[in-house]
């Protein structure tokens, strides 16, 4: 084996330039493969994170909907006529009944990572004579910072201020710009029921989705409860973050039935992101594989040429006692040496390229936390690239190697 390897290396060195070209072909494709997948998945994660970081895995809420049993149905008796008069609306609020008990139950569930309540209130911001529409999300600030990266999206102000301060609010960037409200200034808020409150701006928030930032603002949940004049257990939503994102749809159904509330899982709410990521992944894998296959053809060509040039050497090796399988192994080794060298340098090249991209400034108003292009350094892509490269070079080497093993030495020696 060592002897065959040394013969392979010697043959390789005799054709150094061609071998380097072949190895560079493999290197280039691996570099591109790793870079492409790292970059693509970095972008995927970034775009998914844009939504998923902010989105609970399951949201429990009460949907305001038409009563499933309409008044007329109370008198459906074919023998009588029913008359209905003066049906008055019931003052039903979008509150979650028994929210505290639900939260307690969820916190004990081993599948649940975090539970955080929300209270969403529709408000108007009074700016001079104009009223701007807004939605104040009452949040448990510490939970949101921990599990939903709330602090990452604050472009100004201190999140602690929101957690501790009374009557403070974090405005969406779009909204703040419209009101020309800076930190420390006071805005006047009117609730749907007509109550007015003055809130101090403690931060500016930018999610990266402009329409969202024109409407949404955040406040401590206590502040919102006070704003709406509701008791301390008044919540409209419970956001659940799970250990395993993939279990969300099943768990959502279960929770919905168990607590008699509406439950929306992240997959249903954001189906388009999965699709987008999948398509981008397929494209980058396809391009990467094609690059590797092209490199494989390069190796195949070079080995084929080398075998034609080395027919004499093959004949003499066989005449002096090397068997067909020895010759095949020599040429397979040749191919694998090219493959391994190409793959290793390709991985280094890929890592370098990823680093370069990772340091290219990428500043966009939509993504306040992103300063450079995103890269996913997942070793998975390196492993896939190497595996596929070795497979390709093995196949590319196998056919020429088999041809070499079948060379008839008599024909070569007598043909001279």
């Amino acid at each position: 084996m060592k002897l065959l390897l040394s013969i392979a290396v010697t043959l390789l060195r005799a054709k150094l330039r061609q071998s380097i070209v072949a190895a560079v072909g493999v290197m280039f494709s691996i570099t591109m493969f790793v870079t492409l997948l790292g970059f693509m998945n970095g972008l995927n994660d970034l775009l998914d994170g844009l939504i998923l970081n902010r989105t609970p895995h399951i949201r429990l809420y009460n949907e305001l909907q038409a009563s499933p049993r309409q008044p007329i149905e109370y008198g459906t008796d074919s023998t009588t006529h029913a008359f209905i008069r003066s049906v008055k609306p019931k003052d039903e609020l979008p509150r979650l009944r028994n929210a505290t008990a639900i939260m307690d139950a969820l916190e004990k569930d081993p599948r649940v990572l975090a539970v955080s309540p929300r209270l969403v209130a529709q408000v108007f911001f009074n700016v001079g004579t104009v009223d701007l529409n807004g939605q104040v999300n009452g949040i448990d600030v510490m939970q949101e910072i921990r599990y939903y990266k709330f602090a990452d999206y604050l472009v100004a102000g201190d999140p602690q201020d929101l957690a501790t301060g009374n009557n403070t609010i974090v405005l969406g960037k779009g909204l703040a710009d419209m009101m020309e409200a800076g930190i420390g200034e006071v805005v006047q808020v009117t609730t749907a029921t007509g109550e007015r409150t003055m809130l101090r701006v403690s931060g500016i928030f930018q999610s990266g989705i402009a329409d969202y930032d024109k409407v949404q603002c955040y406040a401590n949940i206590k502040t919102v409860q006070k704003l709406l004049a509701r008791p301390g257990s008044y919540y409209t939503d419970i956001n659940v973050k799970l250990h395993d994102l993939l279990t969300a749809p099943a768990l959502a159904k279960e929770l919905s039935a168990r607590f008699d509330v509406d439950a929306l899982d992240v997959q249903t709410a954001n189906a388009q992101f999965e699709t987008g990521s999948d398509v981008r992944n397929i494209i980058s894998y396809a391009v990467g594989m094609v690059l590797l296959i092209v490199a494989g053809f390069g190796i195949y060509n070079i080995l084929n040429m080398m075998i034609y040039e080395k027919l004499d050497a093959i004949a003499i090796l066989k005449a002096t006692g090397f068997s067909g399988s020895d010759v095949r192994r020599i040429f397979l080794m040749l191919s694998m040496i090219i493959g391994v060298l190409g793959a290793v340098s390709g991985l280094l090249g890929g890592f370098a390229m990823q680093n370069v991209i990772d340091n290219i400034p990428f500043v966009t108003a939509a993504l306040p936390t992103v300063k450079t292009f995103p890269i996913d350094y997942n070793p998975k892509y390196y492993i896939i690239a190497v595996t596929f490269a070795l497979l390709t070079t093995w196949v590319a080497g196998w056919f020429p190697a088999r041809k070499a093993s079948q060379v008839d030495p008599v024909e070569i020696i007598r043909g001279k």
Partner: protein
Amino acid sequence: MSTNVLEVRKVSKSFHDPVTVPVLREVSLDVRRGEFVSITGKSGCGKSTLLYILSTMDTDYEGEVAIDGEATRGLPGSRLAEIRNEKIGFVFQFHYLLAEFSVLKNVMLPGLKLGRYSEEEVEHRAMERLRELDMHDHAMKSANQLSGGQKQRVAIARSLINDPLIIMGDEPTGNLDSRNSDIVFDIFKHIASQHRQSLLVVTHDNDFAARTDRTIVMDDGRVLS
């Protein structure tokens, strides 16, 4: 018991392309240990074809060939390769050294393949063979830096590395001038007499043939004498 290194019984072979032409017709011969045998004959009489059958490289024939008592017919290619490696040395008309390797490494390769000795020993033995043939000064040169006669001497050194029972030559002097031919002949003679190794050499050089122990003359696929 047999001292025959090579036994050939009724070997026939035909070429089938484009029409069937018999090249060998029931050839039988023996080569004893230490015997220096030459095969001569007109061009196209089948002498080279016979040699390649005896060398085990050509397996498409009828009849029986036994090397050192072992019938080679029907053996798998890997076993034939082992026989070639261990028991047969080759010298061709054209040197057939590997240009990528040094002279020394060329001589060593069949020895390394055999694996009977360690690499250091094989190297030592290769140097000895080269010294015997007065080529040791060129050991580190690349094969294509040598003259034709020098290359042939290296090829002979290579054929001797595994102490084969028989050395086969296909026109080993065909490409050399008379002075180098004489050198090669003397080396062969020395091998046969000193090391008791057999030699079977195909040649059309009648002077060369006349000086061997025995000459087999072939004509039209038959052994004449």
